[in-house]
């Protein structure tokens, strides 16, 4: 049996506004296996972002156990958490959140430099990942010279550049148009398949849910539903296809081929 990369038991989190409690998460139990492409879905205020923040060692909890990569992150101090995030977790935020004074490749290289890699090595890694997310030619542009989709690709490259085993993406497509969002999700899915990096994405975007390898539905701070394999209709497959310019038959054929390939490689944790 594969040890889960994320293991959550009886997680409770409550926000307080003055003396008024606002329960965010209530009795969450969740295991995420390595290499999964999991989507946490739910309405606004259902606790998606809170769950991701807790898994990302960004937020404290009231009760429960959270283990990420075998580490009890709740018992880590502030500096250890920072180091843990730097070494093991990549973040993709809704609002891209790139460093505005850096170029795209410097943004990606930043995390590598924080890890202690030399500037040259870091920039080489940044160039590699920018090519992986198909914007290698935009490396010298600053965030304000990039479109939203391009910025989010830079954010994905930045998340991957530190070589994390887990990527947490909080509503990554929320600020993008549907087509760009779809492309981004396909890219992340493809990277998940190819690299075996675990992706945990929070979203209420139907396209993201369709692409999910596993869908976790949250409502009022509780997991109300969880599928290991999301049933897909031909339409949903077509809409999540990166080759949408091809005729439908051809697209479906390509997608089915990709899915078969993905199934064949299932269980492989790390391709690198």
């Amino acid at each position, binding site marked *: 049996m594969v040890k889960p990369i994320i293991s959550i038991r009886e997680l409770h989190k409550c926000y307080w506004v003055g003396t008024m409690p606002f329960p965010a998460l209530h009795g969450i139990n969740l295991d995420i296996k390595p290499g999964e492409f999991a989507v946490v879905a739910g309405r606004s205020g259902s606790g998606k972002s809170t769950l991701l923040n807790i898994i990302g060692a960004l937020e404290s909890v009231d009760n429960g156990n959270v283990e990420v990569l075998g580490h009890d992150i709740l018992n880590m101090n502030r500096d250890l958490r920072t180091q843990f995030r730097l070494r093991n977790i990549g973040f993709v935020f809704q609002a891209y959140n790139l460093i505005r004074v850096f170029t795209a490749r410097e943004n990606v290289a930043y995390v590598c430099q924080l890890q*202690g890699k030399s500037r040259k090595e870091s920039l080489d890694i940044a160039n590699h990942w920018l090519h992986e997310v198909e914007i290698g030619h935009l490396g010298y542009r600053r965030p304000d010279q990039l479109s939203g989709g391009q910025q989010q690709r830079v954010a994905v490259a930045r998340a991957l550049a530190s070589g994390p085993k887990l990527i947490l993406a909080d509503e990554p497509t929320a600020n993008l148009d549907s087509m760009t969002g779809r492309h981004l999700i396909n890219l992340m899915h493809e990277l998940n398949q190819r690299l075996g990096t675990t992706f945990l994405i929070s979203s209420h975007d139907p396209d993201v849910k369709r692409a999910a390898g596993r869908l976790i539905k949250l409502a009022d701070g509780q997991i109300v539903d969880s599928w290991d394999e999301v049933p897909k209709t031909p339409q949903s497959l077509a809409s999540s296809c990166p080759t949408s310019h091809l005729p439908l038959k051809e697209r479906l054929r390509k997608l089915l081929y990709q899915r078969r390939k993905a199934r064949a490689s299932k269980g492989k944790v790390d391709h690198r």
Partner: protein
Amino acid sequence: MSRWRTISLTRPRENSATPLRKRCLLCYILERRDLFYFFPGELMSLSTTTVAHTILTVALRNLLTHRRRTLLTIGAIAVGLASLIFLWGFNEGLHRNMLGNFQKAIIGSIQIHRDGFFQHPELSKSITNPSRVVDSLHQAGISDYSTRLESFALAASDFTTQGVMLIGMDPVREGRVTELAKRIGIGRFLAPEDEYALILGATTANNLQIRLGDEVIIIGYDRYGAMVAESFTLIGIITSGEMGLDKGMAITSLATLQEMMDLNDRVTTFVISSDERNIPSLVSELEHSLQDESLEVMPWYTMFPVMKEWVTLHNGFLYLFLGVVLFIVLAGELNTMLISMLERTREFGVLMAIGTTGYQIAGMLLIEAAVIGIAGIIFGIILGYASVFFTGLYGIDLSILLGSTSRFYVDPLIHPHLKLDHLGITSGVIFIASLIAGIYPAWRASLLQPVEAIRNG
């Protein structure tokens, strides 16, 4: 093996092989670990230098991104520092002018008397062996000195009498230590061939109702206590504008007074001129060499401490002003740093989320504060030094305020002069102030919670 060598050998080859022209200077310096040989190897590892470089880059680029704000803050610091430097320069010029005039007027830099003479000037306390003092002065390398004979006396004209301090001066040597000759407004100063010629202050001459060429009777006591009286001719009147000189002083030649008081070669006072900085060392050297002679070696500030205290008080006002400027600098930079911090709260949250520590965030803000401070100090020094240099060259004419004659030993034309210790203290304090201005925002930023910062930033 030496520490230097160990660290040099650990320098990565690929970095040294990289062409210099393609890399930024900062990157080059930080990756040249052998330049930081004074740090232990593990502290100055490649990862440390890389992280330091990254943090520095973010800090510097942030400053460049907000050019207007950065320049305004740097400008405020520079103008504050420049005005302080100018004030210090003006103050120093004023003090030099005043103290120089004070010493050159009549008292000199150092005086040597018999013990107790300064408090109770009596001819019985004259220096019996002046040649011994002259030898000591020569040993100390002092050539600018003069000898005097000083005693209280009564000056009488046809109309009235007035008490005066009667001073016998060597007309030739006196020019080396004082500029009394320049203070003669009417008539002339003593010449070597003058006998029984007298110079009086303007107020005394006025009180005695006498003019140039008139006869003045001087009545005094010789060294045996016997009353002596001689007739003198008024050849000069001092019109300095300073009460101490214009009132109560009568000057004649040393030889005349020695003859009148029957003191032959004896003198009561040696007056020495010296550079201000050398006075303490000269005093201790002379005290040491004349310790067997029962003589008192007194610098000007021991004889007239009120002048020294006035200078200290005046400097105290400037320190007060320095405090005010510091407060303005502190408030200005704190404002800039706080705005910068609040504007970038979200960015700091993101940086923390992706692995930047609170210390690194704090370091980033402190670097920004330090860079602003250093830039402000550099421009401030250039501006301030230039203002002191040019005004020092041509002088600042205060004759509108002071009139054409000097008052309280201050000439109307002030030449500002900058002392390096004032420059160092002011710049150092402003640098520390700018760092302090960065500490609070840096501390606050380091305590940010990433999620809160991203959510609310």
